[in-house]
């Protein structure tokens, strides 16, 4: 589905992404792990077109999207849950969700699945996004990304601030989404157990490079947990 080839990225003078290459296949959950500040978020931003790639190539569904603007990537079918929630604080919860449908024609209804997954959002439809509690905002951000039915879902630490029961729900939901075979999922996660239980394949980043990769089932055996500690 998504192919990244020799991607490089700089901030000012410092080299943040160093020749990354990987695939995110359809129907699978790919998890990306790495310590703080290794460049995970930077990678996702590059994939979303928020920062221009210095060199390398990104293809999605066969099309080269390396230089495409963000909204074109969404129209192509990429949904994004950013780190830090990034909800629209002065739009209501409902409007925030409707924003998730920006790439769909006007009048497209919100899929009920969102509310099944996050019942609290239904109660809060009229409240402004910025007034929600941190965890509620995180749920909203996930709901928003799911609203238009993406073919690739990119999540940056989606469990941050969410209560355990809902993390379990999210886990189930992601699994079932992947299992339909119609969605590819790229998950950045610090929470090892969560990552491991979902991963079909995993990638570990270190200083802008992928230093380990493999089957999700082999994560423990490969010593990923140890690799993440100092």
């Amino acid at each position, binding site marked *: 589905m998504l192919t990244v080839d020799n991607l490089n990225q700089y901030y000012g003078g410092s080299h943040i992404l160093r020749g990354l290459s990987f695939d995110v296949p359809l129907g699978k959950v790919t998890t990306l792990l790495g310590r703080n500040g290794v460049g995970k978020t930077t990678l996702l931003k590059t994939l*979303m*077109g928020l920062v221009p790639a210095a060199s390398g190539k990104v293809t999605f569904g066969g099309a080269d999207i390396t230089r495409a603007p963000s909204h074109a990537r969404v129209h192509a079918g990429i949904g994004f849950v950013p780190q830090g929630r990034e909800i629209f604080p*002065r739009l209501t919860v409902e409007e925030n969700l409707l924003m998730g449908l*920006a790439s769909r024609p006007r009048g497209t209804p919100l899929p009920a699945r969102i509310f099944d997954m996050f019942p609290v959002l239904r109660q809060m439809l009229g409240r402004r996004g910025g007034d929600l509690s941190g965890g509620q905002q995180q749920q909203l951000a996930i709901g928003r*990304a799911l609203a238009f039915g993406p073919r690739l879902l990119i999540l940056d630490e989606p469990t941050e601030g969410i209560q355990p029961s809902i993390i379990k729900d999210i886990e189930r939901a992601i699994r079932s989404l992947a299992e339909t075979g119609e969605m590819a999922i790229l998950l950045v996660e610090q929470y090892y157990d969560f990552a491991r239980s979902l991963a079909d394949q995993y990638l570990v980043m270190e200083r802008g490079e992928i230093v380990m990769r493999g089957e999700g089932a082999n994560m423990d055996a490969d010593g990923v947990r140890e690799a993440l500690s100092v």
Partner: protein
Amino acid sequence: MRLPLPRLLCACALVLAFLVAPARAALDEASLAGLAGDFQSRLDTIEALGVAGGEDARRVLDALEAGALGVAGGRAVIVQGESVVAAANGEALALAASAVETLTVNNRVRRALGTARAALALASADRGERLAAARTLADNAGQSLLPLFERALANEADDEIRGVLARAAARVNLSSADPAQRLKAARALGESSDPAVKALLAALLEKQGDVWVEPNGEVRAAADMAIHAIDRRIATAETVGTLFSGLSLGSILLLAALGLAITYGVMGVINMAHGELLMVGAYATFLVQGLFRSYLPAYVDWYVAAAIPAAFLAAALVGVAMERLVLRHLYGRPLESLLATWGLSLVLIQGARVVFGPQNVELANPAWMSGGIELAAGVVLPWNRIVIVGFAVFVLLLIWLMMQKTRLGMFVRAVTQNRAMAGCVGVPTARVDTLAFAIGSGVAGLGGLALSQIANVGPAMGSGYIVDAFMVVVLGGVGQLAGAVWAALGLGIVAKFLEGWAGAVIAKILVLVFIIVFIQKRPQGIFALKGRFADS
């Protein structure tokens, strides 16, 4: 009533002529003799012509109005091209046109002419003409007109006209020698709402030395009651008038600010060139007026309607150019947008100066926007202001539809709140920006169109509104359309009530102080954004 002798004579002659001669007779030379006399006797003669009536009188008045009436050798004559005819009967005279001293028509003469024409029109078959005539005469009511009123009253069937005439007669009768007449007059005048009438009545209640001007106590009592009745009516009318003034000022502030409420309030561009977008709209209106005058003179009254799309588009196009060329590079740097748009405004003002000249250009109110509805004597709601209040509502509705009924409004807000994230949910942010700025600019253009009907249209017109516009948007609460509406109306009405009480300069100062104090109480404007995100 102390009248100078010639006036008295004239009046007598007049009354006599009126009573003796039926209205149809041709004018005799004597009745025009006054035209050769001093200024005052000219005026009297002119007024008398109206009272006398008849075709010949009309002809003389027409000639006067056209500047063709003159005197030659002590005789009233009319210049017709190169030839000269006697004014009284139209017979040709052997006189050169250059020998005639034509009468200057100045205001005073024009007033006499107006009275004369009204006197003529009192016999018109058309009700509207009679009513207007009666009103004109009532304002100038003098002893000399009393017989005319009485005759007209005798023939008049229409109640409204009768009322006007009766009050006019009463005004004259207030100085009648007969106490019964005066009492009747004082009572009749209680129906009026005209401050002039009040002044007449009040004069009766004064004392000269120890003596009352009005000796009769009963008449004084009636006058007193009448004054109270008039006062009440005037007070109500004035309050309504002031409220309307406030509403009108508010709607103008609103129209000046609405575009800014979008470009600044919603999009966050500190647009110092907003005033110049108003100017673009106003000049577009001016150009449309020019086109109508040249090509559709018959429909020139409708140029304002045709200017609505023109003003919108012209300003929107300028807005698009501004956005594409400059502002696009400045999103998220609101303070830089201040600097750039300040530069843009200099350029636009000077551009207008070079193209249209530094002077103001002339924009005429169409006939249907001229004049006004008279609520009471002295309180007039001008049509152009009424139309503009309506127009403000229309523009508001337009914006509301645009922001609420299309997704654009939501996209614009989302883009301003979080540009990057808006892109990441699929909003083409660049296009939304351009479109929104174009709409905001277009709305400013509509504001300019409205302003052109009230105030100056010139290169610097915009700079006069920019401060007010920002105050309205900010006072309402940035990004809150409804807030802008309340702020504009509130400021308008407060300003007008203060102005009536303290004068324009102090009122303006007080309004500004009011804004400063108000924001202390509501540091985020009327429609404050509450909530946790507001300050973190």
